[in-house]
């Protein structure tokens, strides 16, 4: 009977012009979002590549200069001597490390416009080394509104579309008077409603998956390599589960037997609560529980530490003159700075990690949060992947530093051959299984409430209720 309802309802669905319009609108918006996301990923990828290439060119240039000196050319002034490991490490020679975008980066902008995707590393502390900031310049207007990405289309707009297609699932029939005739046939209200809802879900989920997949296909061939397909599967799975949740919610509201306007109000209210209010409140809770440490205080702290250390430096340079600072001493100063500021930076990261893990728990309060976190996670544009990147950069930074510091301590000069042996950085992606575990948890957090809602709706639908 269920399948019969699904089958015979087709014509009813097709007779509703609004359905075509709404799905068309969804398609247009998804297409724009996909295009917009893809182009902005391309832009930032190109920028990162250009910057990395420029840095490589700079290193090649230094190597050439050094080679010229080694070949008997005139010595360069101390402050521009690529052979002095202290000087070179302090700023002349740097390594630009970049967090590569995942194949799915275009689906969710996440924190991409906030966080540093590229970092220039020298032997200096990571904090003091980059005073101009690392994050891309997007302009406050866009940052404040957020990007028009697929995550927005699916998290925020898709439920509204589902609501528009389902708010009068039962109430519409009741108000038109057709429900009585339907129920005089050998079909139960529950079967009829579930069949109708399922058929609409089939259409919406079908269209959504096609759109989402089309967006992926346009994202390029990166998809086929590495964990691209696994990520794509997680993305589509989370999306389907989210749509399922909203259909279940619509069925549950319909089962209460109100008027269609009442249903629409209830569903829009639910949407407002779950998509806007709860995430806002969760954010309040998260920030109250783990307030981010003050960058403002960090600025003063850094300054205090640097100025003390700089005083020591000037004293050193004053006694030794321009040409010969005690490299050793310089290193200790830099290390000391790191030791002083390091714990504060660690606190920042810990606090952010604590925030994120609280969000991980609280996300289950709102399906919108679940899907958003899942999409950002799959797209690799969130704080988690960034934290992973930061941690790897830290390790690499030690390695980079050690390369120069070892030579400073040993009193060796850098040779042009050393420039070929500089440590290189490659980001190691999280194993896809742990990503799947997180996203899978989220999917469960969508499917379970959906099932509970459906079960509850089924008990409500057992009674026939008002017919007109």
């Amino acid at each position, binding site marked *: 009977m269920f399948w019969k309802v699904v089958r015979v309802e087709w014509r009813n669905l097709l*007779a509703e012009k609004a359905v075509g319009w709404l799905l068309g609108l969804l398609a247009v918006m998804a297409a724009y979002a996909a295009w917009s996301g893809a182009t902005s990923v391309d832009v930032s990828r190109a920028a990162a590549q250009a910057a990395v290439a420029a840095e490589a060119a700079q290193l090649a240039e230094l190597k050439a200069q050094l080679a010229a000196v080694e070949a008997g050319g005139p010595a360069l002034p101390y402050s521009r001597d690529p052979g002095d490991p202290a000087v070179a490490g302090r700023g002349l020679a740097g390594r630009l490390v970049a967090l590569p975008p995942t194949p799915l980066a275009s689906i969710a902008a996440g924190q991409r416009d906030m966080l540093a995707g590229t970092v220039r590393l020298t032997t200096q502390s990571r904090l003091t080394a980059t005073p101009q900031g690392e994050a891309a310049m997007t302009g406050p207007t866009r940052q404040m509104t957020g990007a028009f990405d697929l995550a927005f289309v699916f998290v925020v707009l898709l439920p509204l579309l589902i609501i528009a297609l389902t708010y009068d699932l039962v109430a519409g029939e009741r108000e038109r*008077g057709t429900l*009585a005739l339907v129920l005089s*046939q050998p*079909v139960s209200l529950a079967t009829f409603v579930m069949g109708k809802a399922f058929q609409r879900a089939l259409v919406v989920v079908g269209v959504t998956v096609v759109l989402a997949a089309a967006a992926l296909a346009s994202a390029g061939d990166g998809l086929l390599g590495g964990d691209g397909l696994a990520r794509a599967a997680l993305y589509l799975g989370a999306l389907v589960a989210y749509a399922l949740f909203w259909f279940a919610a619509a069925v549950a509201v319909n089962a209460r037997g109100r008027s269609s306007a009442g249903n629409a109000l209830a569903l829009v209210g639910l949407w407002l609560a779950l998509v806007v209010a709860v995430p806002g409140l969760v954010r309040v809770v998260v920030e109250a529980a783990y307030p981010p440490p003050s960058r403002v205080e960090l600025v003063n702290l850094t300054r205090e530490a640097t100025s003390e250390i700089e005083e020591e430096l000037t004293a050193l340079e004053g006694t030794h003159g321009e040409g010969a600072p005690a490299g050793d001493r310089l290193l200790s100063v830099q290390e000391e700075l790191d030791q002083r500021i390091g714990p504060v930076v660690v606190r920042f990261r810990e606090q952010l990690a604590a925030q994120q893990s609280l969000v991980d728990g609280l996300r289950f309060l709102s399906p919108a949060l679940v899907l958003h976190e899942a999409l950002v996670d799959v797209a690799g544009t969130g704080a988690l992947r960034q934290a992973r990147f930061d941690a790897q950069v830290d390790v690499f930074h030690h390695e980079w530093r050690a390369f120069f510091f070892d030579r400073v301590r040993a009193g060796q000069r850098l040779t042009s051959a050393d420039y070929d042996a500089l440590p290189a950085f490659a980001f190691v992606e999280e194993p896809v299984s742990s990503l799947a575990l997180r996203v899978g948890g989220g999917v469960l957090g969508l499917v379970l409430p959906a099932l509970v809602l459906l079960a509850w709706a089924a008990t409500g639908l057992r009674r026939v209720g008002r017919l007109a």
Partner: protein
Amino acid sequence: MAAVLEAQGLRKEYDGFVALQGLDLTIEEGEVFCLLGANGAGKTTTIQLFLGFIAPTAGQVRIKGLDVGQHGLETKRHLAYIPENVMLYPNLTGLENLEFFTRLAGRDELGETALRETLVEAGLAKEAADRPVRTYSKGMRQKVGVAMAIAKGASALLLDEPTSGLDPKASNEFSQLLARMRDRGVAILMATHDLFHSKEVGTRVGIMKQGRMVGRHATADLSHADLERIYLEHMHD
């Protein structure tokens, strides 16, 4: 003759208000039982109880021997229902509506031609079948309702004031349709205010008042004038 529609000691209360008190009724194949009575006398309640839309407070409703409460879906296979206003999906054509409900009723074997014929049989003009229902008059929609009953092959027909608001000609056509169904052996229960057609198509009439069946008469025994007199007498006291 087998009993198709049966009610035994049927009672329905809504929050202390008694809508129906102790109704006993048996309608057999080829019988048309007309329920007469003022608004609120319990006619619609009786029909809804047969449909299983509401559950009885006490007593039993059976269709072809099956209890409606226990075999809700099964009993509906035998039933057709025509409300005061047959409401159809306005954007679908008459044929599409008929097809929809017939498929829901489980008669998948009926093809388009058969359905078209049914519509014609129910008295709908041939060319009307492909127009959207939103252009239909009430009489046309009632005919689609009858067509649904025919197509379903229902053995019992429940009608709730099906002719109220129809013009005399349409009303007459409708009665003829019912007479044809009756002659085919369908058991019909009809709530109505139309004394004239009750006498014409009905085999029996029952007069209801405040949830009680206060009089039962075989129409063969009565003239039109008798029926009207009896009805008014019941209404007066």
